[in-house]
């Protein structure tokens, strides 16, 4: 039964998936046994792709990816790292020119079953099936199955030179047999039985073809089942009538980071970098590892000497002895690195974890490998959307109200997120509506390469773009990057990525201490909220984040406006405008969706901030003036108060340059002049101030004033000029605006009525009332 007990039986090598010790043991066992063929747990459809592994451009980590032809979103994968026993066996077979076969259930069946999880062995899915290693570890007095396996198998090095390289496999097989017997059918699920039946059949075929001297590498759990005596008919019976889909397989590059993930496309290996190190290190793994850690820390600017490394090694080894482990493992080296190399701090240690324990390793797949599912998905989309890749440059215009055009736009946006710049959005000529988009399309040959690189993110354009956007958000440095990404996600219709992006966005906003950054981010975000639902995405979460951002601006803005240089003040004034508009829009959206009146509350707090800005001394004139203007436009300040603010800002004590900046802040931007046209008192104040500016200072303030007034419309400028000429420079008497009478001129007002009646013709009955209200309106607004 066991490898040596029955020499003519196949050599069964039970391993832990992705265990470096297992990989080393497999290599030693194969070198020793020199089997006639090597069989490995994996999808048999991939047999045709095996030769690619010999290609020198093929570099692990890579994965075999199987996807349903009709639905590339349904995919299963078999990841291989350099330290995976399966990969070692594969490379051994190729190097020794020995036939190689995968023997697991075909991917066609795996994909068709409702919950595809091909890698459900020791390393993953302990909940699905009794975790055999946990049971063994508990028997050995270990809390953590990973640690037990590492001590018992992975860390066991060397052994007797030509001693029994098969002994560990025998021991593991015995242990597994005990386990399976002890737990009976409890730990097994139906899918395992089917898989094992298939493996037995494949092994039988292989024995017929290559004789008995073959080796089988599979998860340790399966070993007892593969030696069990079952009839061919019984096994065939099990395999009968399995659901099936058309599947295609390909090699795709993989990363260590993905191996380390516990869900999705991960393999649940917490420390692929450490495993890779254990597999590669010729000897003294702890010393070599801590040297690597020291080099990394040194590169990052932490002073770490060789003496540190020596002490860290001593600490790690003594810790292992204290904990009763045969060799210092990852936990011991990490503790030692923290205490000796990182001064007890977890911050540099996080770097070590990210760069070494997990690692940045990125696999490569040779050119000749079959097209990735991502490429196929794109082909399919290109066909269905009738959007052919063409080498020449071509402009296309999409009407987003049409379904096909909207889908095309989404596809191009998604590809842009994936770094496949097939189309560039072009600023449309002339005033097109927001429902139109113009794209410049150009398919360059290197985009195929980009697409192959992007295959690592997923199997469909949508899935890959989602994964990429999420990763981009997590890695994004500046707040505005993440905001832009959120906007892109909306454009590309990636609602699945939005929660992650928004969470990162909220975190960045919370930690960003620069209010200017927040101010920059808010308008884009509010735009997204406003137009998000146009494209059918749920904007509530987005509104929540935007609300939080606005709240932080409200809190931080007054402090951020102090002590600004003129340039910075001008920038901040721009931010003030942007935020003001955004807050208005956001409050509208909140009022539309929210019941608790949070929109009104936000508006109230914002106008509170504006009042603070307007009345706080020491802030730059441009900002104070702007705040007053914004309050005036919103009707939050009456003319009386505005006049008082202006009077204070332009009083003789204020330096002329400051006064000019205030006027610029107050009047700048659209429709500034009309404020003056309609309020003679303000005009009078400006006029009086201007005449009181000393001759020496006048030339200093002139450029700024000229810039301010030059922006007014010609008509407004002329009216102002006339008013200044006919009215006196001094403030006009109370209620008597220049150019207007003190009271309503009934006669002249009545003269308008016939014309109005003409305009409003059909509603003849309402005319008197309309006329009356028109009159009163006219009356209240001088």
């Amino acid at each position, binding site marked *: 039964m066991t490898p040596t007990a029955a020499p003519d039986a196949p050599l069964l090598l039970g391993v832990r998936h992705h265990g470096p010790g297992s990989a080393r043991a497999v290599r030693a066992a194969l070198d020793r046994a020199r089997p006639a063929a090597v069989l490995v747990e994996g999808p048999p459809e991939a047999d045709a792709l095996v030769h690619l592994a010999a290609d020198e451009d093929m570099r692990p980590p890579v994965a075999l990816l199987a996807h349903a032809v009709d639905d590339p979103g349904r995919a299963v994968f078999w990841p291989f790292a350099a330290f995976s026993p399966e990969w070692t066996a594969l490379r051994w077979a190729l190097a020794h020119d020995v036939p190689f076969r995968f023997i697991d259930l075909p991917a066609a069946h795996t994909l068709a079953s409702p919950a595809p999880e091909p890698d459900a062995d020791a390393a993953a899915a302990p909940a699905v099936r009794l975790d055999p290693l946990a049971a063994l570890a508990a028997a050995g007095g270990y809390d953590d199955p990973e640690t037990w396996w590492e001590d018992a198998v992975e860390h066991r090095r060397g052994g007797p030179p030509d001693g029994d390289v098969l002994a560990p496999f025998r021991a593991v097989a015995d242990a597994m047999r005990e386990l399976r017997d002890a737990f009976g059918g409890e730990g097994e699920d139906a899918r395992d039985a089917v898989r094992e039946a298939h493996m037995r059949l494949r092994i039988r075929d292989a024995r017929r073809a290559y004789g008995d001297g073959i080796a089988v590498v599979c998860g340790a759990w399966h070993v007892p089942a593969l030696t069990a005596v079952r009839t061919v008919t019984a096994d065939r019976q099990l395999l009968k009538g399995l659901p099936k889909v058309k599947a295609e397989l390909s090699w795709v590059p993989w990363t260590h980071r993905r191996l380390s993930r516990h869900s999705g496309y991960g393999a649940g290996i917490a420390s692929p970098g450490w495993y890779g190190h254990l597999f590669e290190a010729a000897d003294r793994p702890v010393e070599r590892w801590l040297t690597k850690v020291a080099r990394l820390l040194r590169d990052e600017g932490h*002073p770490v*000497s060789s*003496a*540190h490394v020596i*002490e860290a090694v*001593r*600490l790690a080894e*003594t*810790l292992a002895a*204290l*904990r009763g482990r045969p060799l210092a493992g990852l*936990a011991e080296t990490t*503790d*030692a690195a*923290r*205490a*000796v190399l*990182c*001064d*007890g*701090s*977890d911050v540099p240690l996080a770097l070590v974890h990210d760069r070494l324990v997990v690692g940045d390793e990125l696999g490569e797949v040779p050119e000749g490998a079959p097209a990735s599912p991502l490429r196929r998905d794109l082909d399919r989309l290109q066909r269905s959307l009738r959007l052919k890749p063409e080498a020449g440059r071509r402009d296309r215009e999409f009407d987003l109200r049409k379904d096909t055009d909207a889908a095309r736009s989404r596809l191009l946006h998604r590809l842009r997120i994936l770094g496949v710049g097939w189309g560039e959005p072009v600023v449309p000529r002339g005033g097109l509506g927001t429902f139109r988009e113009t794209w410049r399309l150009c398919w360059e040959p290197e985009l195929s390469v980009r697409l192959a690189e992007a295959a690592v993110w997923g199997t469909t354009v949508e899935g890959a773009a989602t994964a990429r956007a999420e990763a981009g958000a997590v890695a994004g440095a500046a707040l505005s990057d993440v905001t832009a990404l959120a906007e892109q996600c909306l454009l590309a219709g990636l609602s699945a990525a939005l929660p992650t992006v928004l*969470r990162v966005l*909220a*975190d960045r906003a*919370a*930690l960003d*201490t620069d209010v200017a950054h927040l101010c920059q981010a808010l308008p884009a975000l509010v735009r997204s909220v406003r137009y998000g639902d146009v494209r059918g995405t749920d904007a509530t979460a987005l509104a929540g984040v935007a609300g*939080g951002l606005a*709240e*932080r601006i*409200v*809190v*931080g803005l007054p*402090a951020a406006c102090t002590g600004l240089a003129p340039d910075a003040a001008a920038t901040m004034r721009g931010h003030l405008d942007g935020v003001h508009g955004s807050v208005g829009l956001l409050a509208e959206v909140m009022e539309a969706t929210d019941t608790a009146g949070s929109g009104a509350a936000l508006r109230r707090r914002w106008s509170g901030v504006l009042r603070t800005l307007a009345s706080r001394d020491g802030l730059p004139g441009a900002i104070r003036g702007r705040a007053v203007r914004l309050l005036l436009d919103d009707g939050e300040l009456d003319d009386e108060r505005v006049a008082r603010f202006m009077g204070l800002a332009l009083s003789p004590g204020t330096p002329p340059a400051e006064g000019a900046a205030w006027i610029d802040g107050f009047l700048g931007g659209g429709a500034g002049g009309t404020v003056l046209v309609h309020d003679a008192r303000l005009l009078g104040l400006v006029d009086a101030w201007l005449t009181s500016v000393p001759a020496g200072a006048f030339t200093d303030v002139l450029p700024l004033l000229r810039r301010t007034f030059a922006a007014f419309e010609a008509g407004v400028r002329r009216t102002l000029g006339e008013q200044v000429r006919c009215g006196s420079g001094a403030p006009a008497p109370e209620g008597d605006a220049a150019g207007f009478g003190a009271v309503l001129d009934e006669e002249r007002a009545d003269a308008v009525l016939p014309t109005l009646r003409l305009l409003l013709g059909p509603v003849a009955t309402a005319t008197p009332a309309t006329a009356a209200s028109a009159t009163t309106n006219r009356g209240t607004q001088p």
Partner: protein
Amino acid sequence: MPGQPENRVQQVLRPHAEDAFAGELAALAAADDRPRPARWRLSPWAVATYLLGGTLPDGTVITPKYVGPRRVVEVAVTTLATDRALLLLGVPGTAKTWVSEHLAAAVSGDSTLLVQGTAGTAEEAVRYGWDYARLLAHGPSREALVPSPVMRAMEQGMTVRVEELTRIPADVQDSLITILSEKTLPVPELGEEVQAVRGFNLVATANDRDRGVNDLSSALRRRFNTVVLPLPATADDEVDIVARRVDQLGRSLDLPAAPDGIDEIRRVVTVFRELRAGVTADGRTKLKSPSGTLSTAEAISVVTGGLALAAHFGDGVLRAGDVAAGVLGAVVRDPAADRVVWQEYLETVVREREDWQDFYRACREAAA
């Protein structure tokens, strides 16, 4: 966290660890068959068991002296076993001194070799001083020399403790470098030196978030293995510590017990933990952290202060208004930066919590 000594040795207010737990140490020594480093009373394994607690084969129960991650104690004990000096870092109230005392008691059976670090700690406290009467009468001699605790530990192969290492002036700190690297203490006046015997080691404690301290030079720093003692891992642990300590303090200050105070304590602890960690308790929202330490010790003083307010000026029940000012004072250490942090926290987190409205209003009033 500190537990109560089981039996009072003689009538002292607070017996040394080796006296208070003499029974446990003896039982451990009897049961301990593992190799011991030179002059250690116990093996490293037994020292770790002494600190973390456990049950011996003969049924003796060892009480846990330190409640926290096992890793911390293991690394600390191993450090001493590898003949490296140990630096325990942490904010106030993380049981640094407690751990160092018990380590010295378990390793050397004596926790009294102690240098208390202050801004006025002189070189004599680290190296040696002179008995001036004898020095003048008989000239320099070994008899006229007054050894420091460090020197005695070197001669006897014991563990010496240095408390608040970062408060000691830099030049005095530096005299430790030779001791720790060469394991010798030269006495140039006598033309001799004291060489450390095997078993000598040093445990230092320092506060890592205190301001205005003398940072360790990198030369000294690299002679130490650093272990950071973490703050209580869960909110419940911390609430428990605060409540227990407040209760003790309140009794000695003759404050009436606050029956409903536990909710307010939980709130204060939550605020402290959230701001310290920079993330809300539900892990959903990130926050800025203020410049203060916000240690458990500060939470205790905030609650005690609130209790005094409630007892003397309020209705005797601890309410949000009683702690708000204290929390504000603990959080806002830097008037400019911390105030923004606090207001953001108030407006984005506290305001959203339905049952925190009284606290929100009280904080707004306190800040106004």
